[in-house]
């Protein structure tokens, strides 16, 4: 984060201003990524008028950075109308997240004319057989890369976002090299988000402990490995007063149905803009204020963990595990992969597993249909 943006974020925090908001315009998508957490049916998306009204309210509330995502944003027939309204009328700093397979030369030119800050495109591999096997759309890698070239040729800032899974983990160095060659930035994320309905089966697609360790020890990614993987100093009173993340403090998320959540990865319902004004939800929702009240010192288990001051703990992932004040196992795995030291949560789980010993064999007749009759 640039110094000035950091300063503005601090200011927004003090003023209780949501500096950055993501709106998913739709959950519909033209890809079927194997790890996606969304249900792609349309259960009644906000109309053009509803979204424009929401954008008015966001601008009024002080939102500066507006991320438009999905689903696939270009499946909305009114996408450019909404983008033009957000940029020309309300002067948001707009970032787009897309697979870009519907972006050709004309769309790229229009995005450029509307002064979009950046376009993030999901790219999982440099090899079509790997990327397309994740999106489940033959030819999708080629179309996304063609789009990236169109956008780049317009002088736009393009970012490749690569979610690491067992299926593609070996390809990330080549994706980064391809991005660099195209003059494109790239990001990596080993996080797999559980499905919105709570189904956690997609987590099995994630990379294993050994791969994660290798990623965190790759100098090309992290620079000074010794520094990156060092165990943080023990948390002092000051650091325990720190905020766990920006969700509900300077950022939040709005679904295509108008539901407001602390973050796209934190599905705690806080209100709906079809029923209430955005600013009322932001300022007065009990759930939003509950999230806002949490400091590191309030976390169960994590407060006593070696990694508490350096952990990437996501409160949304913790919430999806059952307790927003609890640990997020994926982040425990990251801390472990980085340092080799198990987290307090991992140690507690191991202890619990050791306590669950079978003290005697269960007679084979119990539980059988004959015994129950």
């Amino acid at each position: 984060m640039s110094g000035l943006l950091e300063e503005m974020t601090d200011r927004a925090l003090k003023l209780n201003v949501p500096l950055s908001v993501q709106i998913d315009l739709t959950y519909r998508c033209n890809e079927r990524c194997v790890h996606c957490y969304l249900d792609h049916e349309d259960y009644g998306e906000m109309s053009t008028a509803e979204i424009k009204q929401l954008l008015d309210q966001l601008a009024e509330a002080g939102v500066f950075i507006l991320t438009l995502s999905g689903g696939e944003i270009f499946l909305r027939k009114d996408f450019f109308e909404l983008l033009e309204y957000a940029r020309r009328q309300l002067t948001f700093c707009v970032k787009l997240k897309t697979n870009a397979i519907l972006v050709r030369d004309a769309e790229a030119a229009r995005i450029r004319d509307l002064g979009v800050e950046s376009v993030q495109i999901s790219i999982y591999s440099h090899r079509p057989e790997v990327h397309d096997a994740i999106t489940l759309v033959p030819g999708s890698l080629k179309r996304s890369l063609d789009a990236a070239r169109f956008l780049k040729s317009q002088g736009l800032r393009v970012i490749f976002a690569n979610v690491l899974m067992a299926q593609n983990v070996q390809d990330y160095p080549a994706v980064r090299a391809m991005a660099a060659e195209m003059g494109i930035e790239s990001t990596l994320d080993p996080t797999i988000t559980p499905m919105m309905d709570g189904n956690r089966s997609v987590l099995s697609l994630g990379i294993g402990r050994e791969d994660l360790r290798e990623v965190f020890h790759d100098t090309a990614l992290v620079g000074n490995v010794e520094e990156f993987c060092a165990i943080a100093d023990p948390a002092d009173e000051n650091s325990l007063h720190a905020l766990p993340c920006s969700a509900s403090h300077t950022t939040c998320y709005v679904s295509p149905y108008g539901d407001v959540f602390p973050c796209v990865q934190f599905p705690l319902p806080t209100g709906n803009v079809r029923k209430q004004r955005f600013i009322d939800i932001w300022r007065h929702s009990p759930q939003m204020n509950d999230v806002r009240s949490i400091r590191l010192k309030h976390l169960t288990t994590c407060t006593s963990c070696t990694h508490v001051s350096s952990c990437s703990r996501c409160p949304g992932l913790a919430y999806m595990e059952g307790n927003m004040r609890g640990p997020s196992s994926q982040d425990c795995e990251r801390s472990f992969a980085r340092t080799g030291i198990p987290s307090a949560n991992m140690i507690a789980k191991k202890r619990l597993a050791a306590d669950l010993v079978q003290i005697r064999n269960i007679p084979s007749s119990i539980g059988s249909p004959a015994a129950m009759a």
Partner: protein
Amino acid sequence: MTNLYIARNPRAAARNLGGEMMIMSGRDSTLFTLNKTATILWQAADGTTPLNEIVENRICSEFNVALSEALQDAETLARELAGHEIMRISEQPIAGSGGVLR
């Protein structure tokens, strides 16, 4: 002195945060905050009001400075903002500098 017109660059992003104007350049995403004078210029930059009128009505009255001095400073500032592609500057009125100020 030639009359100048100034307009907000539609490619820039802008928001008022607690009384301070945050602007992001459409050219390279550099973030700026504007001081009080620059904020007045930005808010008044509708592309149709001449710069000398803006300075006379909005700046001289606010800061109690002589018109000639204020005009010179304002022109320098406007050219600097134009250099960052935050503002456009022309000797003719400028169309299409819309956007609601918030």
